[in-house]
């Protein structure tokens, strides 16, 4: 349902893409996350958090004013908590995916802008590109990104009134 086990390492194409994304990812800087949030991160780096946040804003673009924003429920923070509970190999896959989506435009679309620097409509176009790609590795990546964003959003009690979901019978536990 969530991350795709070994999704980038599957096949030569995936390996080449991942290698390229990792190289580009290491060579760039300029990601600023407030210190308090950065200190809370368990699995993602500040940069990966910001990429996940940018993805979540598009995947969970609201269709009405009553919908809490992805930022309001801290989707990227919830994804970080979730990913930290998974096996290390799966954590590595998630982190590699976020690097690839950030720098994938350079590899797939021929322009150099990072995903986090694109306008919302351009970000949507990138996601549609992944969704419709002839490369299985990108379609898998799209599904994984989408599912992580959904997990971070629809886990939150504040989103449930939108869909009429009555929620668990048990009260939420502290902590």
């Amino acid at each position, binding site marked *: 349902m969530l991350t795709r086990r070994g999704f980038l390492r599957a096949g030569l194409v995936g390996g080449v893409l991942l290698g390229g994304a990792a190289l580009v990812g290491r060579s760039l800087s300029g990601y600023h996350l407030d210190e308090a949030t950065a200190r809370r991160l368990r699995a993602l780096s500040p940069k990966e958090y910001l990429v996940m946040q940018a993805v979540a804003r598009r995947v969970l673009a609201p269709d009405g004013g009553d919908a809490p924003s992805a930022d309001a429920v801290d989707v990227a923070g919830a994804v970080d908590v979730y990913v930290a*509970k*998974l096996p290390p190999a799966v954590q590595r896959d998630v982190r590699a995916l976020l690097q690839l989506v950030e720098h994938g435009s350079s590899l797939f679309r021929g322009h150099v802008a990072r995903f986090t620097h694109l306008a919302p409509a351009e970000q949507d176009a990138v996601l549609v590109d992944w969704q419709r790609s002839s490369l299985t590795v990108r379609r898998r990546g799209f599904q994984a990104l989408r599912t992580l964003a959904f997990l971070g959003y629809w886990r939150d009690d504040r989103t449930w009134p939108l869909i009429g979901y009555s929620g668990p019978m048990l009260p939420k536990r502290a902590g």
Partner: protein
Amino acid sequence: MIESGRDIARDVTLDCDVVVVGTGAGGAMVAREAARAGLEVIALEEGGHLGPRDFTQREDEMLPLLFQDGGGRTTDDGAVTVLQGRGVGGSTVHNTNLCKRAPAAVLDGWKLAGWRADELAPHYAVVEHDLSVAPIDESRVNRNNAILRRGVEKLGWKGGILSHNRVGCVGSGFCELGCSFDAKQNALKVLIPAAVAAGARVISDCRAERVLVKHGRAIGVQARALDNGGGSVGRPGATVTVHARAVCLAGSAVGSALLAQKSGLPDPSGRVGRGLHLHPGAAVAGVFDEIIEGWNGIPQSWECTEKLRFDDAPDNDDRAWIITAFAHPIGLASSLPGFGAAHMTLMRLYPRIAVLAAMLHDRSEGRVAVDGERPVVKYALDGGDVRALVRGMAACAEILFAAGARQVIVPYAEPLVLSSVSELGRVAARGYRPLDPLLTAVHPMGTLALGRVVDERGAWRGADGVWVADGSLFPTSLGGPPQLSIYAAGHKVAGHLVEALR
């Protein structure tokens, strides 16, 4: 005694008669039966030992605890999500309690001594008694399942109520996240305590890494104590070496095949890890004017068998078992297509949608390979299975329209929205390609198959002292929920194992 690998600080060597790897339906049954027969039993479980107080009814909290890879395990192309349990009790902790004997046509078709339907019946009977299996009362059929019943009855198709292993169910609807009310009569609640009462020792948070073999005979298992970090992290700790007279693999068709290959167990048939069946399923959603709120009540209580035939004819494309497939919000969101505002608008239909799934009695054979320490699940639908899947999806849509749906959504990446039954042909026109639509499988089977990798007793061919007691055994798809058959297989294999050690 149930203990945790977290509490094992130093390398340790243990001795017993039988070490069982995995504590799901098959492993728990073997542990109980062997312990009751007076054998010293140690059962190893990779996941944690959880109970009703740990089940919070929240998806994000339970997925990492109850499922392999947090629910993220897929086939290597990502086309099929393979949901598999972890933790004491295995997949019986999160399954929806469906109990159905394998059809006689399937069992008899195996042509394996001791596995004909009439020969397996006594084992099924023991399981059904011990797990309090009974048909769901019609009054407990929730609205989503009532939609299925209504559609099937209007079409005059075959279908009926299902049997479950639940006692004291309050209908919370959270079965797939573990039962907070302890109503599941499963491996965790019934068999493991009975095994422990009979003297078995269960070690959770402890992953079997190698079967130890000496001079062609298994002598035990090398395992690793784990810190699972409140999920499935698997941070490695001390080495746990268990010397035993017999090793029983019961870690699922994926886990057991992985362990066998990592251990280099002899493979004279050349079939270790091969012959994987998954029962892959596709969901189809109907939008209704009435309120359904399918998350309330027993999730799966009714079935449609109209499109499920068990004959071996190459042109038999009626191989879909149709059941309901409702999910909580995260699961639903993942199964609906698209993203952004359009996806959120679909989500708002939640209380008014009914979801059915066509689960395939598959003939395609995949395999479990090894990548380092982890499994790689390779599987692709063959042409016949694609046809059967598409027919099953169309049948789901037909049932939903017959039940009064005003729209049916087939969750392709570009959603297919049907407005009437006259449009069913559009499903076949779209067909299937990997990842479109996404498929889900919860029943891996067949990677250490009877008559190939193991003999009719469940004993390994090529190494003495190795036994198999999980879904790996089944040489074909079952075409229905396998848990009862895995329990029954565990009961049968346990009998042979005990006899061999006497």
